[in-house]
């Protein structure tokens, strides 16, 4: 018995890796469609703000993440943009991350095509600008001095109809930041929303949820979409289940595997210490 427990505690890590592969891959091929996703107030905050905007309002979306955080932030960005385009809002995209333009371009172009939106009239892509907080403070006074041309066509911003009435951040009906680090949500709050006074919503990775929560309580954020769970809630709200809803099964099983293994290891240790000695 003691030998068995010893072997269990020294289990080959490759077996653990195989278990991880199984619990993640299995639900992808055979979705379990587990019920139990509850819509939280934080996610509703972003949804309700977008829902309350009148048609043709212009919103700004900053995609401040790179491929490493794509699994968590991509689904929520797609869901929010789908909601915005469905509501006939005009969307302007940008990124403060040097490694973000590819994803930002992909998300905004893909969702705009789904709703047959016209570039320049219904949506625009500013692209990437170096500087982090300096970009935000600059946009707070005059966007045209920070982004003189768009990133897709290289044309002056003032030539696009979507830019009518937009001079600074205050002119956007809503600003949303999908942030995975720095510059990100903190930067948008400290140098943007607090300084220039515009409505800000955000989406973050799971590890950033706890640090970002205080801003929600102080109403510096109108809403917060935390990680894939938040994205799946948003997909339910817009009645368009997609990648996040599908991924929740894998995440659920993965988390339970970790819990199971931690409990197992500790129970075995207790048994060894108190019952087998």
């Amino acid at each position, binding site marked *: 018995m003691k030998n068995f427990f010893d072997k269990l*505690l020294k*289990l080959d*890590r490759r077996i*653990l*890796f195989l*278990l*991880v592969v199984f619990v*993640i891959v299995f639900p992808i091929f055979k979705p379990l469609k*587990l*019920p*139990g*996703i*509850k819509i*939280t107030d934080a996610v509703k905050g972003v949804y309700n703000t977008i829902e309350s905007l009148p048609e043709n309002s212009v919103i700004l979306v900053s995609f401040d993440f*790179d*491929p*490493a*955080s*794509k*699994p968590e932030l991509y689904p929520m960005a797609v869901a929010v943009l789908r909601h915005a385009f469905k509501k006939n809002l005009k969307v302007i995209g940008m990124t403060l991350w040097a*490694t973000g*333009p*590819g*994803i930002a*371009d*992909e998300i905004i*172009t893909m969702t705009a095509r789904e709703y047959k939106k016209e570039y320049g009239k219904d949506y625009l892509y500013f692209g990437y*600008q*170096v*500087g982090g907080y*300096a*970009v935000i*403070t*600059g946009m707070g*006074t*005059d966007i045209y*001095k*920070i982004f003189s041309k768009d*990133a897709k066509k290289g044309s002056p911003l003032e030539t696009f109809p979507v830019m009518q009435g937009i001079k600074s951040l205050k002119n956007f009906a809503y600003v949303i930041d999908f942030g995975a680090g720095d510059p990100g949500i903190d930067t948008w709050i400290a140098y943007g929303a607090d300084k220039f006074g515009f409505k800000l919503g955000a989406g973050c990775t799971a590890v950033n*949820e*706890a*640090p970002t*929560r*205080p801003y929600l*309580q102080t109403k510096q954020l109108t809403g917060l979409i935390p990680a894939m*769970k938040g994205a799946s809630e948003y997909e339910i709200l817009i009645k368009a289940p997609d990648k996040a809803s599908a991924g929740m*099964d894998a*995440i*659920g099983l*993965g*988390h*339970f*595997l*970790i*819990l199971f*293994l*931690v409990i*197992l*290891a*500790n129970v075995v240790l207790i048994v060894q210490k108190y019952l087998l000695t």
Partner: protein
Amino acid sequence: MMLIKRYIPLAIVFVFGIMTLATYYIPPKLAQDYYLETMNKWINIVAAFAFLLALLSLFYSHYNKIKRKVDGWGYSIFVYIGFLVVVVCAIKSEGQLMTGPALTSLGWIFRFLYNTLSASMFAVLAYYIVSTAFRSFRIKTLQAFVLFMAALFFIIGKVPLGNVLWNKLFFWTNVSISQVTDWIINVPSVAAKRGIMIGIAVGAIVTSLKIIFGIERQYMGKD
């Protein structure tokens, strides 16, 4: 030499530090139109030079690795190859990832190399987290127990399967798991985070003042 290496940088830091601080206390329009806009342009220019400097430093570091044939020097060659390939493709694609619905060569590199490699590197963490949790997370102290209980409630509350299980097993408590996780994240977690944020902010203010007034000079190097 002291003038260039010490006094001029200190004077620049002092003047611009005080002026930037002052923008919070003078009429916003005046500060934004005349000062902040100019500063933003300068920050962008300085940041662009910092990028260039970092690139040169990277090349120099890998050149030395190849020259000295240190362990793994072969990988350093790929730094140059990767850089060249991306730059050539970026110039050829005029910086665009897509032309219409088709990917440019730069877009292809981004989507099928950078995207996948970067996501894979991050995904590998999952395996190590599971392995480390099993081997190292021993609940031997009160702190470890509190950490485990918080994680337990959080995991149960954050995944649909947990909600289902809680509703089946603990329906008699009349407390939903989302209420428990909401309390954890909105009360103790936010309280701790606020404390950390206030501490960091006070520390940042003190350090900034020390830099502005020339007490803290480590950023200027050893000379």
